[in-house]
Structure formats: structure tokens, C-alpha cells
């Protein structure tokens, strides 16, 4: 499918905007998903002068979503400076949400269906939906169906005090009961990733992100929000020495083998991002920059329930399929943006691609994909430093990578994002 599409006209990344990412229960307490996504979208409109314009489609989504937000993206558009005639839809694919919105819009542009699109996502843990328990919900529904006072009282009579306890959304996998961190801890152990390697990656993420701020890289990628102008999880002075002092947070069953800490795992974060895509004609007609082509993207999923594969390893499977389709090797890239759900995720994935056995048995390849030049990895920081508001991460990465490629003026970038449910999404961007 991708090959057919890539023979069509290019889908161009014009630019992006996000609000700074904030650690949960901090700067953005009181802001809803709709508030934050509207801020990200209005900042994008302001940057590119899109006021009153009808965009082909706006797609976004949230992983943690209130039932009232059944039409989240459309409501965001209606509250934005865009034309109210702009259609919008929601996507929900765990942490793959943001990149999936952008990929699907790119396909619509390539096929000629739309001229412009805005993709992205938002998440807040600080304003997470809290639901009533299933038992209380059943009582309320039964009472609602009751036709007489007697029936209604009978329905409420079934209520027990424990039913009143609210049920908060968790990040545990429903089929295993394990948190994402515990799942990754198993994978980290499986690939023998050292604590030191994880801490090195985490420290580099913070230092790279801080350096990017210092050289004004984010001046046209971020719009401040609620008094925050930078990602507040960032620690510019982070070092391996400091990170090495943290106690393990996941994989405690592994005893002294446990290596994953709060420092080399992403924190819960609030934030939103949006990316503007268009055809070349759209960009030219509106005097807009063309940063990169959105070349291709690929989804994958793994069987983590049986324990056959690690929860967050799906991108390891998606990448070779996409490379084969595009006739590229893993080394044909100038930048690698591998989402840092955990430092262990990035390092396990890279190690898997270097492993002849894994590449032969699991990926069906004659030779391993091989190693990458680590100096090209997450060069302006990634989720360990910036934070990871689930659905917003795809938009952050696409806009950042597109700008990096445009600054370089040539080359390709590879994006890899893991997601809950054993899923993954990967993509290729090409400089313009």
C-alpha cells in the first residue's frame, strides 16, 4: 500500500507547534485535554497565519479520555481560530495516536483527497477521567430504566458501600495486570541492558534537549502555556553520576538486577502537540515552508500476552518491513528518533536489530539490521527529558525531526514509537 502511495504526490511537513510538556499534577492542573489541544492548535494557526482557513482535516486524540470528549478534536477546532468548516476526527491508538493521525493525514494528502491536514494529540494525567465502579454504574443504569419509585428504590437497594469507590484509569495492561514499567523491566532484563547504559541515554536526553533550547531550536516549535515556556521535566544539569543514585522503580522482583529508575523512565506528563501537513501546492500557494516529506509509515503489533515478545518491542518488527518496502537499510538515515518510553526500550530495540538470532528468527532476515551511529540518535532530546503526554509525543517528534532535516538540508530520519497493547508505529521523513 505504502509503495503505491509513495508514487503519488508528496505529503509535506510544513511545521508544528506544541505547548511545553509539564509533569503531571503540576503546571497544567485544571487544564483539560480540550483546553491544551486548543492551545496547541491556536499556536499553530498563529505561527502559520491560518486564521479562518478551512483545513482538509484535523485529527488528534487522547489516550486518557473523558466520555464527554466523544468528539474532542471537532470541539477543539470549533474553539480555535480555524474555519468552523474544518472537519475533524479522533484517533485513539495509545501512544501511537499522534503519529497515526499524522500518517493517515499524509496518506490523504498523497492520494489527493485533501490539500492540508493537522495531526497531533493531547494527554493529561492531571485531569484524567475517573469513572464510577461497574457495580455503581449498573445500579445507576437500572435505576434509570425503572418505571416506578418502587423499582428505582429496588435498584438502589443493591448498592454496597464498596461500589462507591471510584475507578481511576491505570496504565496497567488489562490482559497481564502488569504496568508498562514492569513489562519493560522484563524486556530490559532479556536484552541485558545495563543500568549505566540506561542512565547514559537519560542524561544525554536532558543535555541534548537543554542544548536545543539554548540554540533557540524550539522558538518556532513551542508556544508557552499557563506560565510554562519550557518542558519542566528537563534537567539541564543531569548527569550519569546523579542518575546513578536513584533507586529502581520497576522490576523489583529482579532484585539487584533491577535497573529501571524514575530517572531513566518517562514521567507522567501533560501536554499537546499539532503538526501542519500539506501538499506542495498548498504550501506554495500559502507561502509556507516545506521542511520534510512524510515518506511512509508502518504499524506492527506483538504477542506480549503469552510472553513471547516484550510489550514495547513492536517497532522492532515494523521498521524492517518499512525499510524493505522503501528499499532502504537501517543505516540510510541521518537522524533516528526513537521514543524514549524508557531508556531500556530504546536500547532493547537497538540491541535486537544488532542481534543475528532475533533478526533471523523473529524478523525473518538473512542478516541483522545492524547498529546505528549513536550520535544520530535523539539529537535534540526525547521523551526522557521532555516528558511523554501519551498522544502528544508523535507530533512532538515529527515537528522536531522535520525541522532538523530542513536545517541539515538533506537526508532522512527514522521515527519509532512504541505503544500499549503491544503495538508500535514507525515512519520515515525526508529532508526538503
Amino acid at each position, binding site marked *: 500500500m505504502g509503495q503505491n502511495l509513495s508514487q503519488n504526490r508528496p505529503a509535506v511537513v510544513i511545521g508544528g507547534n506544541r505547548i511545553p510538556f509539564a509533569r503531571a499534577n503540576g503546571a497544567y492542573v485544571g487544564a483539560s485535554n480540550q483546553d491544551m489541544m486548543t*492551545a496547541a492548535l*491556536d*499556536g499553530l*494557526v*498563529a*505561527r*502559520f*497565519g491560518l*486564521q*479562518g482557513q478551512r483545513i482538509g482535516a484535523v485529527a488528534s486524540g487522547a489516550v486518557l479520555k473523558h466520555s464527554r470528549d466523544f468528539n474532542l478534536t471537532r470541539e477543539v477546532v470549533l474553539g480555535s*481560530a480555524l474555519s468552523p468548516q474544518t472537519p475533524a476526527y479522533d484517533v485513539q491508538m495509545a501512544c501511537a495516536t499522534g503519529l497515526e493521525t499524522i500518517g493517515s493525514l499524509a496518506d490523504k494528502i498523497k492520494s489527493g483527497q485533501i490539500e492540508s491536514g493537522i495531526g497531533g494529540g493531547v494527554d493529561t494525567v492531571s485531569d484524567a477521567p475517573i469513572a464510577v465502579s461497574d457495580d455503581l454504574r449498573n445500579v445507576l443504569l437500572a435505576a434509570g430504566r425503572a418505571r416506578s419509585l418502587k423499582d428505582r428504590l429496588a435498584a438502589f437497594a443493591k448498592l454496597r458501600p464498596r461500589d462507591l469507590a471510584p475507578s481511576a484509569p491505570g496504565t496497567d495492561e488489562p490482559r497481564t495486570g502488569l504496568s508498562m514499567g514492569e513489562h519493560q523491566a522484563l524486556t530490559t532484563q532479556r536484552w541485558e541492558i545495563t543500568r549505566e547504559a540506561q542512565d547514559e541515554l537519560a542524561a544525554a536526553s536532558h543535555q541534548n534537549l537543554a542544548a536545543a533550547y539554548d540554540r*533557540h531550536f*524550539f*522558538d*518556532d516549535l*513551542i*508556544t*508557552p*502555556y*499557563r506560565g510554562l*515556556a519550557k518542558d519542566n521535566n528537563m534537567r539541564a544539569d543531569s548527569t550519569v553520576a546523579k542518575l546513578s543514585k536513584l533507586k529502581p522503580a520497576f522490576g523489583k522482583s529482579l532484585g539487584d538486577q533491577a535497573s529501571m529508575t524514575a530517572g531513566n523512565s518517562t514521567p507522567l506528563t501533560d501536554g499537546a502537540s499539532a503538526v501542519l501537513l500539506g501538499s506542495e501546492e498548498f504550501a506554495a500557494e500559502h*507561502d*509556507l*515552508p516545506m521542511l520534510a516529506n512524510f515518506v511512509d509509515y508502518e504499524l506492527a503489533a506483538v504477542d506480549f500476552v503469552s510472553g513471547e515478545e516484550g510489550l514495547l518491542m513492536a517497532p522492532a518488527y515494523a521498521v524492517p518491513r518499512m525499510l524493505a518496502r522503501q528499499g532502504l537499510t537501517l543505516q540510510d538515515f541521518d537522524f533516528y528518533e526513537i521514543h524514549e518510553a524508557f531508556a531500556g526500550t530504546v536500547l532493547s530495540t537497538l540491541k535486537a536489530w544488532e542481534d543475528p538470532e532475533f533478526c533471523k528468527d523473529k524478523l525473518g532476515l538473512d542478516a541483522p539490521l545492524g547498529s546505528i551511529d549513536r550520535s544520530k540518535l535523539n539529537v535534540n532530546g526525547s521523551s526522557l527529558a521532555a516528558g511523554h503526554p501519551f498522544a502528544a509525543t508523535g507530533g512532538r517528534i515529527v515537528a522536531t525531526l522535520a525541522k532538523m532535516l530542513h536545517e541539515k538540508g538533506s537526508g532522512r530520519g527514522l521515527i519509532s514509537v512504541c505503544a500499549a497493547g503491544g503495538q508500535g508505529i514507525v515512519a520515515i521523513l525526508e529532508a526538503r
Partner: protein
Amino acid sequence: MADQYLDFANTPFGRSLAKRLGLPAPVRLRRYEQGAALIPGAAMVIGSSELARTTGELLLGWGLEVRTHDAGHAKLGAIVVVLDDVTTPADLSPHALTLSPALKRLAPGGRVITIARPEQDGDAPELAAARLGVTGMLRSVAHELRGGATANGIELEGSLDLSAPSAQAALRFLLSGRSAYVDGQFLRVDSQRGVLPQDADRPLVGKVAVVTGAARGIGAAIARVLRRDGATLVVVDVPQAGDALAKVANEVEGTALQLDVTRPEAGELIAAHAKERHGALDIVVHNAGITRDKLLANMDAAKWDSVIAVNIESQLAMNRAFKAAGLDQLRIVSLASTSGIAGNRGQSNYGASKAGVIGMVRASAPQLSSGVAGINAVAPGFIETEMTAKIPFATRAAGRLILPSLQQGGLPRDVAEAISFLASDSAAGINGRTLRVCGQSLIGA
């Protein structure tokens, strides 16, 4: 920015109380509205020179009812006194004495405007005395007027007359509600340069304008007024102010550029953004500015240096970059301040930077003197903004009520109107000048 005293003083009870207590009685100023009459009544032209005759013709051409002598009892919307032919102070007498009874019939929000020659090097003592005499008379009349009426002057250099586009544009600006808070000031026209707009209500159609410091206050008001007047906007502010900036950009349907103007590449980045995204750069409004008030005796390097860097060095650097980029038809308007003219306690750094702006525009003018190019400054007096809202109540009350002739603070919009006028091609004959928008405040007099 609600001025509660202004509201109160305009109620029947407030009016009578203010009168009995001898408090100032500020009125609502006549501010510009698109499509509104140029002046609130007929225009009277005083003077006997050829220039007086052509002034009357011009006003007739603008559709005004024009009188050349005081007759009847109808309210006068404006009185234009043409004094280009005075040669000795005694020559002022007949004009002043004709103006005298007419003043009593000036409508609220009316205008007194003198058109005269500026005093210049080489003038005979009698001539210099007569010409400077005009300014003393006009400024005193401005103090005398009430009801939101103002008095301002136009100075025509050499043998310039009303065929100079900027002379016409200045006259229209001073008559209109655009000059509501300009009082006791002179606009000097020094050349025949300038192009009058097709549509006086939308003089900036087709122009691309950059406003720095546009996220709030006066900068945001400038963006709104330039947009109303037809310009396409690039609004600039520091990245930290980006959320407010985005709101302004979306309101004026422009583009937001998050940029610290003190960065060495700021001028280049602004020029590139305007050209790439809007195809041109015609107008630059250097509005970005900060205050770090402290008595000089207690000043530290951070406070001093940041004010100088933002308020003046950045403007100089950007202007050099615009020149290097070949933008030789730029119209630049800078924000000075009455603190730069008179100084202000606790503002030695700010005063230095703002006086610096006045010097910069004066010295830069000769390099921007072809076509419609030009550079001028606007010096606001007490303007009601978030910044001034933080000034202690008594100081603020004194600043806005007692000192200016108009007995109130100005609005950010009032500053923006003057900037829009100076940014237009029609003002190209005014170059290197600083126009005060201060309600004739004594501060900096």
C-alpha cells in the same frame, strides 16, 4: 484598563461633585472610527496668505463646511490658523484676535491647528521671534482648551505648501480622531516626498508590517490598528510571551514570530520571515521595550544593560540588518518616551535608552530619504496599560489627571494611531522626528 475616575466624572453627579471640589473634569476623547466625520462641525480657516486660501480649498475638497470668518453661532469642529506669512511678532495679533472669539464656539473634541514655517538657522531675529512665537501661542491655547479639544501645529519647511502629501496627511491626522491624545505638538514636514492613500480609511492596504513586543499593551494595540488600517501583520515577541502573542496574531490574522529582538540575527530573521511568508517588508515598528527602574545610586549592571540592550541597541542592530538586506524603502517607527525627553526619577537606564531612540531616528533619517522610506519615533506620555496599572494609585492619579492638558491618561490605541500615521507612505515627508502622544503632559515639557 478601566479608568474609574473618568467614568465617574462623566456621570451627572460626578460632574457636579468634581466641579464643586475643583477636581479635574476629564471627558471622553473623540477617537477615530472608520467612516465617522473628520471633525465634529464646520471648519474655520484664519489667515490671509495664499496658503490660507489653499487650505480652505483643501478642506472643501474633503467635504467639510468651511468658513473664512466668524459668523453665526454654530459649533466649530476645527479652526485652522495659517501663519506662514508672519515676519515679526506683531503680525500674530490679528490672527490671535480672530481666533479668540472663535475658540468659544469650538465643539467638544474640536481642533485648533496652526500651519506655519519653522524657525530655522539664518532667520532674521524678527522672523525667528515670530515663528517661535507661533509655537508658544499654540501650546498655550492647547492648555486652555477643554472638552477633549486639542491644539497642534504643522510646520512646513522652506517653501513647501499643501501640495506636499505629508502636509495634507498631517492635517488630516490632526483633524481626525486618530490624534485624540496628541496635544500641543508640532509635525514638521521637510520634503515633498510621500504618497497619499487611495482610501484614507485604509491607508496601509497592501503593506506588510512587523511589530515587535506585540504580545500585549501598546504593541498589541499597534498590531490591531495597523490591521484595521489594512496592513498584513507579523507580530514579534520573546518566546516566553508566545501564548499572548499567538492570541494577538490570531486576532489580527497575521503570523506570530517568537523571537528575542536582542539576538544578533533578529533583524535578518524578521526580514526573512516577512519576505518568505508575506512577500515583502514595508513597515517596522520597534515597540519592544522593558523597564528596570532603580535610582542610579542603586543601579546594577543587569538592570542597566538589559534596558539598553532591548530598548535601543536591538533597534540599531535590526536597522543595520534591514539596510544590509537592501530594504531601502522601509518605513520605521520607534517607540521613544516622554521619559527620554524630560527624564524620570528612577529611570536613568530607561531615559538613556529612550533619548537614544530620539537620537537614532534623527541620525538615521538622512539614510532613509528616498522614495517613501523614513524613520520617526513616537513618545508616549502616561498611557493606561498593565504596566502603568502597577504604579501606586496616587502617582497614577497625578500622572493621568493633573498634569496633562487632557486631564487623563491615554490609551494604547492613541499611541497606535500616531504610529499608523507615521508608518504610512503619506508621512514620508516627515523624517527623523519624534511625535509626543502625551495629552500635553507637563512631564517632559
